[in-house]
Every structure is written in structure tokens, then in C-alpha cells.
């Protein structure tokens, strides 16, 4: 094998079983070099898993890429331990310790944000352009899930994104108590009580693949001028029954898939 994935730095998160992302060519080389047997417990259709004689586990995707675990046994133990952990019921659970006092804590959280991100406090002027500066500083935190682990970083980001929204709209902070003593902070604007959520998409961008576009998240929350008017949503007066939508099967280079299609309805 040209490059052994085991010689690289593992790609797993802290506390998880040791594993390496493996390219398609490396998967082929691994399967050719050693003796692997199919692991039915971890295989799913189109995505097989193999166990080697020395106890490694190799997940192979439909596209041919893979994930190599150093030890199947270790993976099983970690999975069992994870399954016994309590599951969060809300994205803010354990991530916003300020709870009912969050609004009062907003100024100090922004001060702390500047300190954690090592940006001048005066540069956090609640302008949209300042969000780019925060994004740039966040890129230095790797893996990005650490953002949730550094004390008061995630609450600081919520506080700052909310302040940008508040400054832009003239709205006010607003807390909603949900089950389990969790308080959801919003910015409320306008007579219709338009809510802006500075935390949900932020959390998703931290915990899902892809970058964190704080600027996009905040601008998507801003009310459009037309949001202050009743929104135009109308039931279909005359549904067009001549045509129907369906999903047609297509064969692509990487296998079959269904795509939306349209055809004349057969009477």
C-alpha cells in the first residue's frame, strides 16, 4: 500500500474509538492486502462492513470510501457506553447555563467572547461586518464541536448574534421557558411579535458538517420588510389535474436514484 491510513492522525473525535478516514483507493488496497470477512452486524444494504483477522473494522460506503477502526471491540464498547448516556432533549440543554438570567448576562458574555476569541472588544460593535471577524476567529477552533465545550463561548455567540439582530431591528430580548428549565432566547421585533432565533441554526452549523456562516445565519433571521405585512399564502383555487408529479428512476454513474418528474395524468 502506498500510504497506510494507520500512519496518519486519527479522525475520530475525543473520547470515541480510534478511526481513520480512508480513500477509495486505500479501501481497495486494504481489502486486497489482508483477509477480511463481512460483518453482518454493521453492514447495511450498499454499505458493507468488514472485520480483519487482527480485529479491525472497515466501513465501506456506496461510493467506495471508508472508515477504518483500529479495533472492533473498542468501537462496540464505546457505542455501548454512548447508548447509556442521557440523551439531550433540546439543543440548548447543557449549552446555555445562564438560563433565566441570560438577558442580564448578555454584556458580560460579549466581553468574554472577545477575550476567548482574542479579538479587540471594540471591534465587536454589533455590525454585520463584525460577524465576519467572529467567523474568522471561530475557524481557529478545531474541531468545531469544541465551541460547545469551551465555557461561555456558545452563550457568547448567541448573545452577540442576538445583539446584532437587536441593533439592526430595534427589537428586544425575550426568553421563553420550555420543559426542563431550559430558556430559549429570542429577539422580538415588530407589532406582530416576529421572533428571531440566534441559536438554532448556529447550533446546527456547529454540530453538522460544513462551515459556520454566522453572517448567513443572522441575515436569514432578519425580518424582511414584507414580513410585517400578512404573508401571501393561498390555497389552490384551480389545481391543475392534467399533470401529476412522480419520482422517476434514473441510473447514474454511482448507482440508481429517484428524481422528481412530471407527466400528463392518464385518465
Amino acid at each position: 500500500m502506498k500510504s497506510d491510513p494507520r500512519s496518519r492522525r486519527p479522525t475520530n473525535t475525543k473520547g470515541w474509538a480510534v478511526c481513520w478516514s480512508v480513500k477509495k483507493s486505500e479501501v481497495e488496497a486494504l481489502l486486497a492486502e489482508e483477509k477480511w470477512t463481512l460483518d453482518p452486524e454493521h453492514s447495511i444494504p450498499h454499505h458493507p462492513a468488514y472485520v480483519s483477522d487482527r480485529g479491525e473494522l472497515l466501513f465501506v460506503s456506496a461510493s467506495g470510501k471508508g472508515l477504518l477502526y483500529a479495533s472492533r471491540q473498542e468501537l462496540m464498547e464505546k457505542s455501548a457506553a454512548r447508548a447509556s448516556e442521557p440523551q439531550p432533549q433540546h439543543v440548548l440543554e447543557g449549552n446555555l447555563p445562564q438560563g433565566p438570567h441570560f438577558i442580564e448576562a448578555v454584556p458580560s458574555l460579549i466581553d468574554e467572547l472577545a477575550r476567548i476569541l482574542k479579538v479587540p472588544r471594540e471591534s465587536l460593535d454589533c455590525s454585520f461586518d463584525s460577524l465576519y471577524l467572529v467567523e474568522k476567529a471561530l475557524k481557529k477552533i478545531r474541531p468545531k464541536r469544541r465551541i460547545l465545550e469551551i465555557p461561555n463561548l456558545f452563550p457568547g455567540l448567541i448573545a452577540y448574534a442576538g445583539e446584532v439582530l437587536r441593533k439592526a431591528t430595534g427589537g428586544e430580548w425575550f426568553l421563553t421557558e420550555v420543559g426542563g428549565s431550559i430558556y430559549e432566547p429570542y429577539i422580538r421585533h415588530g407589532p406582530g411579535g416576529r421572533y428571531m432565533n440566534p441559536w438554532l441554526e448556529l447550533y446546527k452549523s456547529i454540530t453538522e458538517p460544513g462551515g459556520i456562516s454566522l453572517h448567513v445565519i443572522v441575515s436569514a433571521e432578519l425580518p424582511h420588510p414584507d414580513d410585517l405585512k400578512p404573508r401571501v399564502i393561498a390555497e389552490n383555487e384551480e389545481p391543475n389535474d392534467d399533470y401529476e408529479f412522480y419520482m422517476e428512476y434514473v441510473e447514474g454513474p454511482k448507482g440508481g436514484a429517484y428524481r422528481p418528474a412530471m407527466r400528463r395524468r392518464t385518465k
Partner: protein
Amino acid sequence: MHRYSGGATTTWRAFARFVMFAFGWVVLVVSTTGCIVDDMPALTDMVTTAKLREYYGNPNNYTGITYNQAVGLQFQRDVLGALPGPRVLQSNRKPFTSGERERRSGRFRSVIPDGVTGAVEGFHGSLHPVISTHPESTFVEVKAVKGVVNLEYAQYQILGMLDALSKSPAAFSTGPDRAYPSLYFVVCGDTTIGTDIGDVAASRNILVWVSSVVDHGGGKLQVHRPWCMNCGAVLQGKQLPAPTLDGPSFYVQKLRASGDRGLDKPILDDGLVGHPGTPGNTRPH
């Protein structure tokens, strides 16, 4: 030799004249009837990612992935408010743990579907009408993606959803009128759904639904009634769900420009950065 060559030229000229004459008729017929193929829709079509970009605009001059995120986020917000059915679905705020996703990706331990709702015994549609008997058993995922969404999409996000749904309350429903968990995609015209999703979902008794979004022109969109991808496999020997209605039509708005709020200039009472507004205000939603 010369005469033969001239005859061939004449024949070619006559043939070219015939082709041009026939082409003229085709153009005339197409321009008057509006279509050439019987199955080609004349007025409506599905919205594509390119068309969405056109409707939403790009006032902030985003590029690449950032712009995709901006369009996807706005599309998600618009669609969740106009799904087929009587209710407006709120954004989901709960992460659902998936051991299978964590094992396959090595990093991502949960999924956060765009929308979550329940399932009902005896009802095999995509979105239940009013009251559900099995909460958190239907996931809604809005995808404005040009290309294939399959199990390994976004670090096995879809596999994670199927894994979480296989542990949802509806997954443990039994009896002839049992409830089924559902994964409901709302997609663009250029989004395709991999067959591996339907296969794995069917093996776990999870229904997969797909709705495309219809483009009525001028920014007016509509979520079409859902199509079941694997009902034939999951509901074997049972009556297949009756077709539901389309969602209400809605107009999309341009993305917000960061320089111009489009709102009146805010009047802040403090002029200070970080003023907390109304401390301790905990009025309910």
C-alpha cells in the same frame, strides 16, 4: 463526370429546401401549440436550485458554499411554513442521537431534522392531520441540493435519521393498524434521492416520502403532494395511502441585504452595546 456532379448538387439543394420547409412547419406548430411533446408541461414546472437562486437573489454577494447555505436556509424556512396539511411545522430544536451515524462517520453523534412531527395509528400518510398517537416519529428534511441525496450524504446524516426513526415511538407500534415512522423529503427538481435510502428504510419499516416544489413563475412556489418511495415494500398486503392535497402556494422574497435592513432605522433606548433589553421577561411564546 461534370454532369453527374451537377445532378448531385441539385438533389442536395432540393433536399435542403425540403428540410427547411419541414423545419418551418415544426416551428409554426410549436409556437402555436406551446409544446412539441405531449408530456411536456406548459405552465408549471419544478423549481430548481438555479431558479431558487434567481428568486432569492444575492444582495450580500455571497459565493460558493456560503451562498448555497443562505439559499438553503431561506428555502427551508419558506417550505416549513407551507407544507401539505393543515398545520404549520415549526423548526425542530431537538437533536436525535444516532449511534449508527457516529459509527459510520466517526464524528457526528446526532441528527437535527428540519421538522419533526408525530405519526398516527391507522394513518399512513406523510403528515398526520391533527392529533398524533406517536410523537416524534416523522422527520421532515428540506433539501435544495443539485445532485444525489443518499445515505452517506453529509456524513451519513440520512442514515442517522433512519436510525433515530427506527427507535421512535411509532417504530414500536404493532397490530394491523400500526403507525409507521416516516422520513419526508421536500426537494427541488434537480435533487435526486438515492435508492439506498428507500431500501434501508423499507428494511426498518420506515416510510420515505418525497415532495417536489412546483414553480408557478414569478416567485410563486408550492409544495406538491408527497409521493411514497417505498410504501409498496413496507405496506405489503395493506391498502396504500390515499393521495393527499398539495400544500398552499406561497411567494418567496429576496434574501435580506446586510447593508439595508429594509426597515425603519431602529431607535435604541441605550446607544450601548449589549444592553439587555427587558431583563427577566419570560412571557410565553
